[in-house]
């Protein structure tokens, strides 16, 4: 088909569209919705009597803050990257908090020298994996419903950042339901859950993001 004819067809089929809010505003909406839901869940179900003293320990506080910052940075990066004219360098934004999160968790395992919790079996660590995956699914549904409205042209980084943000949010919530120090097995399973979600989200990018 000739380009001129093609342009005529596009123009003839034009419908008014509602402009999307800025990526930062859309990221803030998602974070606010998820933050409210998380606050409700924590207030209702978290073991605050064990979680609060743990969070007073600087290393755990740093780990928790880095997890939350990774979530915020990855979600913001996903929304920024979903729009055509934003720099691809947004994809680096979650890297610093992610490294701090991994470093703080890794340091915790090394210092405690624990492989398993006292008297527990590997089966208990798998609860973390299930928790992260189960919490991530509804968060991902909301996130991808918002991201796909932009129909990202390059869906790989958007899907990867989005799922990283969702998995980090779930890991942040897990801090309030994890009343003991992270063992090497826990850390491996946390990372496995995050990696599995990122890979799954990236693999399903086309149906999820309509691109």
């Amino acid at each position: 088909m000739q380009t001129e004819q093609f342009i005529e067809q596009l123009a003839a089929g034009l419908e008014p569209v509602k402009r999307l809010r800025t990526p930062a505003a859309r990221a803030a909406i998602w974070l606010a919705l998820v933050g409210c839901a998380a606050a409700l869940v924590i207030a209702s179900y978290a073991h605050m009597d064990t979680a609060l003293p743990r969070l007073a320990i600087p290393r755990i506080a740093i780990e928790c803050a880095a997890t939350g910052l990774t979530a915020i940075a990855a979600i913001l990066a996903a929304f920024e990257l979903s729009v055509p004219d934003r720099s691809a360098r947004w994809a680096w934004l979650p890297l610093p908090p992610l490294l701090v999160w991994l470093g703080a968790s890794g340091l915790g395992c090394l210092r405690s020298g624990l492989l398993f919790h006292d008297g527990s079996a590997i089966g208990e660590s798998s609860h973390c994996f299930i928790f992260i995956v189960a919490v991530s699914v509804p968060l991902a549904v909301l996130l991808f419903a918002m991201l796909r409205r932009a129909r990202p042209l390059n869906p790989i980084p958007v899907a990867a950042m989005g799922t990283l943000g969702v998995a980090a949010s779930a890991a942040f919530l897990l801090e309030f339901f994890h009343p003991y120090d992270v063992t090497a097995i826990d850390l491996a399973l946390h990372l496995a859950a995050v990696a599995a979600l990122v890979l799954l989200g990236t693999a399903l990018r086309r149906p999820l993001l309509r691109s």
Partner: protein
Amino acid sequence: MHAAQAGDRQAYGELLREVTPFVRALLRRYCSHRQDIEEMLQDTLLSLHRVRRTYDPRRPFRPWLGAIAARRGIDGLRRRLRVARHEISADARSYETFSEPAANDDIEALRARDELNELLQRLPVRQREALEALKLRQLSLAEASAASGQSVAALKVNTHRALKALRALFQKES
């Protein structure tokens, strides 16, 4: 673009026509083939149409459009490389188009006919007449004799000599 987001079809048509040379120039970085550029250009315009709600009028239009064109240019380049890896272009100049040897039989037969005609022209007239009448037109000896004015014995001798001479010419040529 601002008007297009509000549904102004005329403004949208004008905008697309106006940006076409700019987009075409950008796409030339990814490809030099005219038809492929037009295909990428239409892909770019279609993408622009699909993502038009992401344009923010407070930001400049060109980088937004340029990013869409660059993405479609990269996709087009990838598609071309993928196709080039598995397919061979079939234009009239390429004879070795297909891997199946039988596919080239027609063109080889044509070439062989031309070569044979050239060699026949090099034979003495009597020998050529005898060969054409008996072997190519497949006349009987009596018919060939009547047509050429040569005796039956002369036709036999000339045909034999013509074949021998042709064989020698073929060997010399190859």
